[in-house]
Structures are given as structure tokens and as C-alpha cells.
């Protein structure tokens, strides 16, 4: 049994692969989406515990993904970690206003991302 399921929404193939590798090593079940529309589609289908969501996604961006997920009234709503770029303070504020659970800024450490995902999963179980 896995410790939780994660949807990695990242269009940079190599970065997505590195995140997947580390999460799988941590015992998580990982699915990767490479653009906004497929992120929404997969989130509806696999109902992940956590979405690691890049802001700059093709199709529509991370904010639009969140809006679409809310419109679809996913239940339970997955926990979301937003990947933002260093120096884009407005993005962080907007992400938190939209109710994301956490954010990390690029260039981040993947170890850090995995630890945050695990922390959210534990919080979810406690809650």
C-alpha cells in the first residue's frame, strides 16, 4: 500500500521526472500531467491526495487549474502545493488567496518538495 497519491503538474519533462523519482522512492504513487487541461482531467479521474502544481503550465495556468477544480467541486478537494518562480511575490499571494496549502519557489530542492508533500499527507490523515 502506498503512503498517498500525488499528481505532478509540470511541463518541464526532466524536472517532472526528477520529482516523480523522488516521490516514488518515498513510497508515493505518482502521476504526471504536462499541461493545464490534462491536469484538471487527471485530477478528476484519479482524485490524488496532493497536486504539485506549476504556475506556468501550457493550455491554462496553475490558477486556472485551481478555478476549474473548484468549479468541478472535487470531493475531497486535493491538497495543493504551488510551484512559483523566485521574485514573483504577486503569484504567491494570489495562490494563498485561492486557498493553496503550500508553495515553494524555484529553484527549489526536490527533497524539500517531497517533505512538504509528506507533511500535507500526514496533516490530511490527522484531520
Amino acid at each position: 500500500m502506498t503512503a498517498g497519491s500525488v499528481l505532478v503538474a509540470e511541463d518541464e519533462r526532466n524536472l517532472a521526472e526528477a520529482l516523480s523519482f523522488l516521490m516514488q522512492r518515498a513510497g508515493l504513487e505518482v502521476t504526471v500531467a504536462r499541461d493545464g487541461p490534462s491536469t484538471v482531467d487527471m485530477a478528476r479521474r484519479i482524485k490524488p491526495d496532493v497536486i504539485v502544481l506549476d504556475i506556468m503550465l501550457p493550455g491554462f495556468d496553475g490558477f486556472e487549474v485551481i478555478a476549474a477544480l473548484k468549479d468541478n467541486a472535487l470531493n475531497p478537494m486535493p491538497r495543493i502545493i504551488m510551484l512559483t518562480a523566485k521574485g514573483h511575490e504577486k503569484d504567491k499571494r494570489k495562490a494563498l488567496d485561492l486557498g493553496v496549502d503550500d508553495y515553494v519557489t524555484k529553484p527549489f530542492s526536490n527533497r524539500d518538495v517531497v517533505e512538504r508533500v509528506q507533511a500535507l499527507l500526514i496533516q490530511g490523515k490527522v484531520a
Partner: protein
Amino acid sequence: MRAPIGQRIRKRRQEVALSQVALAARVEISPSYLNLIEHNKRAIGGALLNRIATELDLDSRALAGTEEARLIAELSEVAADSALSGIALDHREVSEIVAANPKAARVILALFRAYGEARMRSDLMGERLGEESFLAEASQQILALITTIRSYSEILKDHGDLSDDERARFVDTLVGESERLASQAGDLFDFLGGRGARRPRPSPREEIEDFVSDHANHFPGLEAAAEEVRPSLGMDDVGTLARYLLDHHGVTVARASMAGSGDELFEPDGKRFLLADTLGQGSQRFRLARLIGELEYPDLLATLTASASLTSGSASARLKRALANYFGAALLMPYEDFAVAATESRHDIQRLGARFNASFEQVCHRLATLRRPGMEGVPLHFLRADIAGNISKRFSASGLRLPRYGGACPRWIVHHAFATPDRIVTQVARLPDGDAYLFIASTCTPTPGTETLGSHHAVMIGTTVANAANFVYADGLDLDNLTHAVPVGVTCRQCSRDDCAQRAFDRLPEPGARAMT
């Protein structure tokens, strides 16, 4: 403005301890005329220049100061740029700088070139910053790459139990992403003009012009190569040239409809040379002649190109093509035959074109290459401009300064040639310093079928009025009375004709005038 030939003659004469009277006698002119020449009050060229050079044991090209004339011309133009308006160098001072230290003049020109490039980059950056998207996108990409590299580095460090395949794959990814990062960072530095940015350099066209000018637009090696091939050709019609290519190089020439994909296509593997079916006989012949040069003398072309030490691959490729074109012209218009025909026809461009089956531009360009020592043609300038005044080819041996950094005087006949397409128009033009020239210009007809997207140019050649009698176009002109000559300048910025109705830009302050603060 004249190159300081007179000073050089005087200096050299004194070095060899020859009196003015003695030198004048040897070159068969009066001492008073030599005195005027030595004080730069008379233009000198052609046979007399060669005789003086011989008597003083000097190379006539060095004495004529082709390179110095170019430096003076360019430095004068630079001195007239608005960025230097507070300094106000006059022509005499420019001439003195070049005469005293040509290397310093080159340094100033290199700095100005760098400044011009920086100004252009600044404009470009302004445009890009206006959009914001370039920097935003570049920073996103770089951050993503750094994140990826960091991730794989952590994986390789933290996970000693990776399989060999995994380790090899992750290292490959790491190397690939590092290279992408280096490339992205390079682009960003280029954009920002930071420490890693490209160093300013002249454009390919400028570099090629300098090289051609340094060789006085004459390449003896290519002339000799063309003369080597010519006897085995016999005729030089399209069929003969195509047969030569097939017999000597196994290349088949074919006509093809090439709408939108250029006028020619060489398939090295297929050994086929396709020519657009819109090209006339003359254009076909020149392309075939050029290809013969490219296939028969690749080493010569490569050596000449390498000797130019150009700063970019594109400049080298363009120069090599230009040299091959030179070969083509030399093959179809053999030096001696052409030079004799030019003299006999008094430079009647239409007659020369008919005899050598060449266009107006091809004949004019070939006339400008007649610089073989001992068999030199009349010193000419050559200029090609489009209808917007942009100059795409320039060379001057006539003494006329051709602008390098901006548009030429709007009164020059080359611009007016567009009003009467395909007609040869002439002009006697007088510069503010009194030097007068005969200008001859015509438009170049685009290839049929490409009138909309093809290139539309006009070509102008010219020479000093002292040499104008050698041109059929001077017939009927009163060259002794220049009061009717068209008052022209070189560029508006440098021109002192304040009353000119055609002025496009304000003149820069006179030397000595205080700059506005």
C-alpha cells in the same frame, strides 16, 4: 576631400633628396604644376601618378592612399555624427590624424563601430523591455533549468543505490540541462549586454567592404584563374558553360520553376544545378561562370576568404560568394578585352553590355575592378542603393567619399534614377569643397516574375570631371564651366549647403562652434 597624396609626394621627394624641378622634369610636368600637386591643390591619378610613383620608387596604390582615403572618408563621417557634435573635428584635422597615425584612426573607427552597435542594442533592448515578456520568459526558463539541475544533483548525491542505467540516464539529463542553461544564460547576457555579451563587431557587409577596399577592388589571383579557364571555354554562352560544367565537374544544369525558393539551387549530391526559369540569359551565364569558379578553385577562394580574417561565419560565406562572383565576371569579361573595349567605347555601358552580354550593374562593377597595375582603368566609384536610399554596395577609387553610416545626399542622381527606370541618367555634381564629378546611374531591372518581391536597386558609377572626357556620357557637357553643376554634398549632416531645399537633416555645428548645453 582629397587624400593627402601631395604631402606624401613631397615627403618622399625630400627623403630621396630630389628637387621639385628635377622630379617635375623626370615626370614631364612643369615645376609649378608639381608644386600645386604637392600642396594638394590639384587632383592626381592615372598615368601621372604611376610615373611619379616609379620615380620615387613607391607603390602607386600606397601613394594614391586608397586606404588612407577610406580612413579619412569614414573618420569625417564619424566626426559629423551627432554624438560627437561637441568636438567638431574639421576635414583638415581628420586628414592630419590619418596622416600622422593611421592606426589611431582605425581605433577611433572601431570604437565608433562599437558605439553604433551598442546604440542599436540599446534600441533593441528598449523595444524588448517594453514588452516585458522576453525577460519574464527567460527568467522562468532559467529558474526551471536550475531547479532541474539541482534536483538531479541531489538524486545522484543522496541515492547511492541507483542502478547503472538510472545513474547513466540522470547524468545524461544533468549534462543536457547544463548545456541548455549555458545557452539560455548566453542569450540573456546578450540581451542585457552584460559581461558575457558578444563583443561589438562590424556587420558582414562592412567587413567585406573593408576587405574589398583594401584590395582596391582588384584580385589578381582570381583574374589569373579566370584567364586559365577561358581558353578551354571558347564560347561563353549558356550552352557552352553548361557543357563545361558537365564535362569537367559532372554537373548537370537544368531550368526549373522555383517560385518563392530563390533563383538557383545547387544539389552537390545530385550533381544538379537548377536555375529558375525566370532568369534571363545574362543572369544564367553569370551564375554558371560563378559555379565554375566555386568548383574549380575552392582552395583559392578559401585562402582569399581566410586572409580577410572576418569575425563571423556568415561574413566569410558572403565574402566567398562575392569572390566567386568576381571570378564569374572575370571569366565572362576578360580583363584585357574588357579594358580595351571600355577605352575604345569610351565607357559606353550599353555597348559594353551588348558586347559582353552583361547587365548595367555587371558592366559597372567590372569597370570598377580595372585596377591592374600598368593597365589601370579610369578610377571610379561604384554605389548600389535601393529606393529607400539604403546602400548595399560601395567602393570608391575616384576620390568621392561614399557614406558608410547613413544615406547619401538626396541630390545624387542614383536616387533620381528610379523616376526613369532602365534609362541611363547622368549628372555633373559639385561638392561644397569644389571637387566635381560625373555621375552615371540607372536602375537594375528585377528578374521577370519577381517585380513585387524581387530586389529593386539603382547603380551609380562616377569619376572626377578631370577624367570625364573618357566617358561617352560627357559629350555635350560643358565641363570647363561648372556653374551649372548640381550642388551636392555627401550626407546632410556634413553638408554646408544650408540653403538646400532637399536637406533631410540639420547640419552639425561648424568646427569651433560651441555645443549647446
